[in-house]
């Protein structure tokens, strides 16, 4: 059988940077191919070649046995290649229906055919078994998971042969991810070829038929997913064996440093109470929308609080501003690196030193030189790969950006670190480094609140895990007394499982 899509020895360079130096892959019709690789391995570049954003320098691409080199995104789309990006591209003010048909509105003599538009949108949603979405609601008002479905429906309207999904689950809960997988399997069974890019290996394993691993712009291996050894795949990804991704560093728990009682925000959270001790890593699990992010923001003073008490180092201080919290030694890592966490257009040094410019100043004037030396030292310590302290941070890969964002808290010498999804959308290597860093911080007596939607990492590195459900922190236990199943049960609001 002729494969749906074949890429052979595709190469692409940007100036001196060789982004792709020989990638080959193959997808059959009705097959899910997992494209696996660390950040910077070239996955996005490869997909941009396929979707027509970049022209390859060398190599061949065949679609249904015929040579096909997309000259621009429209050409790729006409060839039947649809791409769904990690950052959603919906028009937030338009309705779900309008978004689905966007760019292909059925019309007569320039007049919209509303009935046909609705039929088109509905049939796409039905095909995904999602007919009950509120089709007239503005897309921006719906949860991320639904928006993602809308993106797929939009691609579906155009009857794609190949559908590319880039990290689609990075902001989804497990349950939403499951429903996304059902949609993908449905498409596969209808003969669509799906290329699925993800960092979550377990996910790739559950979903895909075959895999291709990229490393440093080269395809280093492919195979059938069923029965493949995950450790072997990780070894291919990083080029070395990652022995223990979750390091357990022995550390002492001290006195409580942060005590939160019945904290309530404007909308969320409804009620949050916990104690954080010196040297403790407290994980917070829960579904997206459970109020975890809002809790951190309320504690840090970014959102208003309605009620409750927050004690920092024994001082009652609910409702302080972020400035005062930083002065107290509390730091927050935003879940949204791009929109909130970083000044993307500014340099690494500006980003890293922003909260504490004092040590990089002389006689009241900020010194570029001191800023750069301080930043270079942190870059070394955190293994940040960049051209230098002066480079704009928006040019770095996600993992390196995140290390700088965490570096800001370290430079600030924060003693209580509120980390919101610190490992979202970053590669395995960087993740492992961040886990180790968090462990080292705990050893040094710092306290960490670690919000994550990825249970294995919570169970892997935390001392204590709290679970939130619908705005309320429902349970806190030492990590040994949780199982993954119990956490999920608590997160979806099932009665607590009795302890045996």
């Amino acid at each position, binding site marked *: 059988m002729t494969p749906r899509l074949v890429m052979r020895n595709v190469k*692409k360079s*940007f*100036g001196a*940077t060789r*982004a*792709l130096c020989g990638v080959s892959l193959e997808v059959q019709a009705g097959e899910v191919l997992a494209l696996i690789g660390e*950040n*910077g*391995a*070239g*996955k*996005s*570049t*490869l997909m*941009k070649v396929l979707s027509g954003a*970049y022209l390859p320098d060398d190599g061949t691409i065949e679609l249904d046995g015929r040579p096909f080199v997309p000259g621009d995104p429209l050409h790729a789309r006409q060839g039947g290649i649809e791409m769904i990006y990690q950052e959603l591209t919906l028009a937030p003010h338009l309705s779900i229906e309008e978004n689905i048909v966007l760019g292909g509105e059925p019309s007569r003599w320039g007049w919209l055919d509303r009935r046909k538009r609705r039929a088109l949108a509905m049939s796409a949603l039905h095909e995904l078994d999602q007919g009950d979405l509120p089709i007239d609601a503005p897309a921006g008002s719906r949860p991320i998971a639904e928006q993602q479905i809308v993106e797929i429906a939009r691609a579906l309207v155009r009857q794609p042969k190949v559908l590319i999904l880039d990290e689609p689950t990075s902001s989804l809960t497990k349950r939403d991810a499951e429903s996304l997988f059902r949609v993908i399997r449905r498409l596969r069974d209808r003969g669509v070829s799906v290329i699925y890019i993800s960092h979550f290996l377990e996910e790739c394993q559950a979903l895909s038929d075959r895999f291709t691993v990229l490393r440093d*712009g080269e395809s280093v291996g492919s195979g059938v997913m069923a029965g493949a050894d995950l450790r072997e795949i990780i070894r291919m990804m990083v080029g070395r064996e990652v022995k223990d991704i979750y390091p357990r560093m022995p550390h002492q728990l001290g006195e409580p440093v942060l005590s939160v009682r019945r904290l309530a925000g404007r909308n969320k959270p409804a009620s949050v109470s916990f104690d954080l001790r010196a040297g403790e890593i407290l994980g917070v699990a829960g579904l997206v929308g459970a109020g975890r992010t809002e809790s951190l923001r309320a504690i840090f003073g*970014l959102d208003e609080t309605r009620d409750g008490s927050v004690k920092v180092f024994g001082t009652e201080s609910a409702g302080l*501003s*972020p*400035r005062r*919290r*930083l*002065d107290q030694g509390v730091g*927050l890592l*935003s879940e949204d690196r791009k*929109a*909130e*966490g*970083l*000044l*993307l*257009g*500014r*340099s690494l040094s*500006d980003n890293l030193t*922003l*909260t504490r*410019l004092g040590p990089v*100043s002389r006689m*009241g*004037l*900020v*010194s570029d030189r001191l800023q750069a030396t301080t930043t270079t030292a942190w870059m070394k310590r955190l293994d940040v790969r960049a*051209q*230098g302290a*002066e*480079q*704009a941070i928006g*040019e*770095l*890969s*996600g993992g390196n950006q995140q290390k700088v964002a965490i570096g*800001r808290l370290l430079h600030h010498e924060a003693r209580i670190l509120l980390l919101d999804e610190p490992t979202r959308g970053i590669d395995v290597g960087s993740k492992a480094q961040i886990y180790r860093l968090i462990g080292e911080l705990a050893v040094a007596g710092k306290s960490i609140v670690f919000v994550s939607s990825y249970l294995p990492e919570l169970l892997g590195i935390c001392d204590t895990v709290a679970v939130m459900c619908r705005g309320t922190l429902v349970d806190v236990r030492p990590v040994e007394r949780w199982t993954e199943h119990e956490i999920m049960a608590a997160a979806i609001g099932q009665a607590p499982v009795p302890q045996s």
Partner: protein
Amino acid sequence: MNPRIARFLSALGPLFGLLFVIGIFSASEEVRPYFLTGGNFKIILTQTVIVAIGALGMTLIIVSGGIDLSVGSVVALTSVFAAKMVLQGFDPVVVVLLTVLMGGFIGCVNGTIIASFRMMPFIVTLGMMGVVRGAAKWMGNNQTVNPPKNPLNALMALSKPQELIPLPMGVWVAAALAVIMAVVLRQTVFGRYIFALGSNEATARLCGIRVARQKILIYALAGLFFGLSGLMQFSRLTQGDPSVAVGLELDIIAAVVIGGASLSGGTGSILGSMIGALMMAVLRNGSNQMGMPTYMQEIIIGIVIVLAVGLDKWRQSRGVRQTGS
């Protein structure tokens, strides 16, 4: 490319533009004897002062991601205000102080409204533009205010018109303030916060910058400069004119933008803005010397603004490397 060198080059871009424009006017045999003289450059520098001082304030605002459309009106109001005070017999020092403070006060009102009601600076200052223009006409009874000869006239007066030196006081004041503001914007915490705010307001808040207070300070400080511009305007005309400086804010914004600032905030420099202000003045002066009608000047300046910013964008887009992930 090394980012340090890249930054240096991007600062030089507007300077090359300025030299290029001077070069073009000097190329013509007929214009050169009038254009390329010390006396003419004294005129150019003096003509730059009002826009340049305004651009000092506007640079802060634009780098912070804001805009101020009320500058022309503020200049008119403060020039009338200064003229009236001189007429009342106030000491020149008091006149200077109060005029500048009046500009600061209006900026403070702008900033407070923008920060406390989270309103678009464009709208707030558009409203203020009308309010202050009206106030200026009211204060001046809808006519110019003509005080007697006074020491403030010396700020912008041209003595020894054939030679470059001595430059009028106003030029030195503008130059000194430019140096101070360059340091303030680049090397102080206040200045760094302005960049952070313009680059990403959410990040600024996350990093403990008191966003509302910072905004009010920025608009108030900029207002002081607009007040000073008004004082220079008064000195240059030796009268307070409530209908003067209509559209001046657009010249100032153009100067800042030619100097490399982005209207979406986060980038810009005092040096660039000063070069931008000079460029506008050189263009006006040069086309005057060439005997061009004013409508041609307007067309040329319009084209130069778009060209300058377009070139800058083009250079930047080539500088950005594509990173795969």
